[in-house]
């Protein structure tokens, strides 16, 4: 009984960590640029395939492929910000349409080129780890570890560096921030690059643990927005809570209830929380 609970708890942690990582990128972009990047899920998916390309097709192995993937998707994010999002930075509707156009392009591109079949990548670390009567894959633990490090690094970046402070300032009040001399363009570029880079990295990490397929883009997007809702808009540090909540819902829901019930139940719960407490666990009032 205990082992079952612990095993499930570890599972929840692993799933949540991925959600947090992806949501982090999304939340950064949203806080600073006020743009809901619907293409975030697609970038996550593309990241997975880019990682596959580096890791398998070019035979660089997963450990080298991951930073390369992050760089490539980060670069993509930088370009996207410059050409696609900057003109619409404070116009939610236009930016949404732009993001949707991006999603269409990315997903269709993936359908037509990378393709139709699923792809697998070698794991980061092979084998399983046994603790008592519970077994988990070693690579999942590695992913959890990597995510924790990244999250800590990012929180430190935001709290302690000047540019991090700039991000917070813009998130709070863009006008005041620019009056204070903060170069919004530069910060936005960086934020978008980081956001997309994180998404791509997450895609690569998950791809090595699970299997890659173009369909993951949609599900991860829904989960990400759910995490943002639960955490609350504007909060970065609180994402751990939202991610954990979402991960728990996703993992334990289907475990205890037949999924036809747990799915709508999970979504209804998110909606309920949004209605009862629009600013989520930690968000700022907008």
């Amino acid at each position, binding site marked *: 009984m205990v082992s079952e609970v612990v095993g499930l708890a570890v599972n929840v942690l692993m799933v949540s960590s991925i959600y947090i990582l992806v949501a982090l990128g999304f939340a950064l972009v949203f806080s600073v640029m006020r743009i809901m990047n619907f293409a975030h899920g697609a970038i996550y998916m593309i990241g997975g395939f880019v990682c596959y390309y580096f890791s398998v097709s070019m035979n660089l192995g997963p450990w080298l492929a991951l930073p390369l993937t992050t760089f490539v998707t980060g670069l993509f994010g930088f370009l996207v910000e410059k050409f696609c999002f900057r003109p619409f930075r404070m116009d939610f509707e236009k930016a949404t349409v732009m993001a949707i156009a991006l999603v269409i392009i990315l997903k269709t591109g993936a359908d037509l080129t990378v393709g139709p079949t699923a792809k697998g990548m070698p794991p980061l670390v092979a084998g399983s780890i046994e603790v008592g009567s519970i077994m988990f894959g070693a690579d999942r633990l590695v992913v959890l570890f990597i995510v924790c490090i990244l999250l800590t690094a990012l929180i430190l970046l935001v709290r302690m560096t000047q540019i991090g402070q700039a991000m917070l300032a813009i998130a709070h009040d863009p006008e005041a921030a620019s009056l204070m001399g903060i170069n919004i363009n530069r910060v936005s570029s960086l934020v978008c690059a980081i956001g997309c880079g994180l998404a791509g990295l997450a895609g690569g990490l998950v791809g090595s643990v699970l299997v890659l397929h173009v369909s993951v883009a949609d599900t991860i997007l*829904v989960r990400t927005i759910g995490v943002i809702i639960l955490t609350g808009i504007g909060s970065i540090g609180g994402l751990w809570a939202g991610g954990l909540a979402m991960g728990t819902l996703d993992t334990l829901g289907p475990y205890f209830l037949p999924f036809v019930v747990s799915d709508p139940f999970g979504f209804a719960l998110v909606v309920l929380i949004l209605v009862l407490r629009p600013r989520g666990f930690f968000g700022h009032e907008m």
Partner: protein
Amino acid sequence: MEKKYGKNFSIVGLIVLLFLGPLILESYYLHLAIMVFIYVMVASSLRTLYISGQLSLGHAAFMAIGAYTSAILARSLHWTPWCTIPMGGLASAAVAIGIGFPFSRLRAIYFSMASLFFGIMVESSAGLAPSLTGGFTGLHGIPRLFIFTRQPYYYFFLVLTLLVLLVLYRIEHSRIGMTFKGVSQSYLAASSRGINEGGIRILASAIGSFFAGIAGASYAHYAGFIAPPQFGVMTSILLVVYLIAGGKGHFAGPIIGTVILYLTPYVMGGFQGYAPFFQAGVLIAVIFLMPEGMISLPGQIASWLRVIRKGRRVSFDAS
């Protein structure tokens, strides 16, 4: 005076053209026209919510509610579709009112996110009573409105769409419509005039959902078969795209947006696999070049032409 005649003339001309449709178009094109009519209705009903300040990212859910309600009633209780379609609309409206109470308190982006998840929730609920709803595979064997020839359906949808558009147009340009717009503009000003902000938004939501439900139900009794993915997130998002790309400031915006964007893949012929790129291209062109949407295109072209024609004179005067 002249302007009004011209405008009415164009509308009448267009309607006459549409009524002549079956004479010049083959059955397959009538089918496309019917699909366009349906989405025009839904996109226009989305606009009703939009003008009251609520951008719903889950509007297709109300299509679904109307469609399934009508389909299940007709199928299980053997009531005629002519009765069940309005009931589908009412069911959608009822649900909209029900969720309207908590949702109307939400502002702007929070409402959008809540509506997104509401839509997803509705779509994923299809599996809850599979014997009734057909589950995720879909519900088939839905009684049809007419025996299977397309022409009566075409006229039915044409007339229905015109009626719905007429009603929505009148609502938007009535006092109620003004109130909707007022509520979207300023949260304080409206309530300072004694207007029940929340109530108005619920009303707008109910109206918009009612017509989405009617459109959905009509579709169910046309196609004979409905499935949850048809009313999912992608559809909801596309509706928003039709609205914004068509022109959010104008009643005909969603109409033109739907017509152009829905038909794009079908015009592509052999390049169907690439059609989505073209749609995305249209979207990008619209938001970069036509901020007010496609509906503003003729206006923009006219002013460009004017500038070209009078160019020199303008610069002379503008010293």
